[in-house]
């Protein structure tokens, strides 16, 4: 009995430790964004203070570009998600339902491609992107973000579609449905959890990505993480309060999204882990 109580105590401590480890940095930034300027760097750290929204006001007045960058991030995230989901679903369907040596070999290639680090392709992509005249547009980031997720997306969708009984699409085929109709009417509705899982991955990635945005955008398509990084390297010195306020605004939507979508995230990674 005593042993059990000890075990429970240890478990509670472990749980507390992991929660503090995961949440404290986030919590601290969000809280600090409501501290007055001189309280942020106060020694010793102030735990009780009078909250203020001065940094948010300054964010609004001094960094209008931050809000347009949030809009850019939204457009790019939506576009990349749509593209990645459609491409992964159609390809996943083929990989699940058709069988050929070529197809099986191409799965290896699909995964092998992911071994190439993104930084490698930035070098030659810059002149190509310029030549096409799509530098600093939403389009270029949409394509890039989608590309770096279609491999995983296809594998995930194949796993999810594998779970849908073949009898269903075969029955539809006997009824004379075309391949597209089967995909639309049978596969997509039943594979929705998989589609959502893929979407969650792409959304989190596209919303937060830094390297590509840094290289391929300048003004029109600048995303929110880029503006935050500009605040860190701002010529006026780092205004930590505003930086924290901007971080909070950038972070909260995607954090809430992950919180509400955690089931799909788990499902997606499960499928990826066991079959990928």
């Amino acid at each position, binding site marked *: 009995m005593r042993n059990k109580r000890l075990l429970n105590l240890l478990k509670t401590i472990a749980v507390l430790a992991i929660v503090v480890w995961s949440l404290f*940095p*986030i919590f601290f930034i969000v809280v600090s964004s409501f501290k007055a300027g001189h309280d942020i760097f106060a020694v010793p750290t102030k735990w009780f203070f009078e909250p203020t929204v001065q940094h948010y006001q300054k964010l609004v007045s001094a960094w209008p570009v931050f809000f347009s960058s949030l809009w850019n991030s939204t457009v790019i995230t939506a576009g990349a998600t749509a593209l990645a989901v459609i491409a992964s679903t159609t390809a996943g369907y083929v990989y699940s339902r058709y069988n050929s040596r070529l197809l099986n070999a191409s799965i290896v290639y699909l995964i092998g491609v992911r071994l190439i*680090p993104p930084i490698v392709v930035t070098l030659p992509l810059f002149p190509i992107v310029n030549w096409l005249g799509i530098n600093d547009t939403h389009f270029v980031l949409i*394509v890039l973000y989608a590309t770096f997720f279609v491999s995983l997306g296809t594998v995930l969708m194949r796993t999810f579609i594998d779970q849908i009984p073949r009898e269903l699409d075969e029955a539809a085929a006997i009824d004379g449905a075309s391949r597209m109709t089967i995909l639309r009417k049978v596969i997509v509705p039943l594979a929705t959890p998989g589609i959502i899982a893929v979407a969650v991955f792409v959304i989190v990635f596209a919303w937060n990505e830094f390297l590509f945005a840094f290289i391929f955008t300048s003004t029109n398509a600048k995303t929110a993480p880029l503006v935050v*990084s500009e605040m860190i390297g701002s010529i006026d010195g780092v205004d930590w309060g505003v930086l924290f306020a901007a971080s909070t605004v950038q972070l909260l939507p995607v954090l809430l999204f992950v919180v509400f979508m955690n089931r799909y995230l788990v499902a997606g990674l*499960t499928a990826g882990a*066991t079959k990928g």
Partner: protein
Amino acid sequence: MAELGDTMKARTLWGVIPLLAPVQLLLLSVIIIPSIYVIWLSFHVSSFGQSATFVGWDNYIRVITDPAFHSALINTVIIVVVAVHLELLVALGVALLFNSGLKFRRLLLVAVLAPYAVSEVIAVAMWRFLFDMDVGPVTQALQALGLPILEWGYDPMHAMIMIALLTIWMHLPFTFIILYAARLALPSDLYEAARIDGATAWQSFRRITIPLMGPAILVALLFRYIFAFRLFSEVWLMTQGGPARSTEVVAVYLYQEAFSYNAFGTAAATAWIMVIVSLLLASGYIYLLRRQVNANAK
């Protein structure tokens, strides 16, 4: 039924090419073709305002014999070996903890997942501030408790620890979820049977949990190897490879060659060395582990 399956095959792949095309086109135009161009570039000397001249294997030799590249490679391997395995152990611990029955499990799961949503840029800003050597709250807390502080701006060892902690913080959710999901999938009657046979908790962990979770562990490791090997933003935004280039990793070395020194040939050679080494690292390790897992399973 079987006939229908055959007809689907018989119609060959031609009919489904439009369905495969988007994925293949994206990969081909964004990754494959540019990578091939990088191979070509790696055999040339090239910079701004200078046309490329063929130099054979020179760029590769230059990179491989550069002491700075050696230290970047060693740092990368240290991060991969230490951080990834530490992360795996912690993730495994947390996964088993969650599986042992917790109150508020969903809520706690969300808490552990939270860092997954944080952008690298913001994560670095957070950690730089928390561990600021003078006024950082964590530094102060450590000092108040009489503990040694992390002098990451001064001591290369501490800077590496800082980077390792940050990557673990950012990627633990990913590894944890994979392992947790795999643990959930294990049939409970196996454990029941083991208990009836009088196995201790350790024995069932050793004999059931580890072998059966083997494939998931492999996948988690493979993913994390690949991602840890291309580690860039954390280091670049945190230390820029300093102090005195002591925390430089391969991706930072590549970035410096390409974007600071504008030496595109050596940058391209570094890129391909990076691809090949990460491939070898991943495949060799996976091969060994797979053999072990198979042996255990028997």
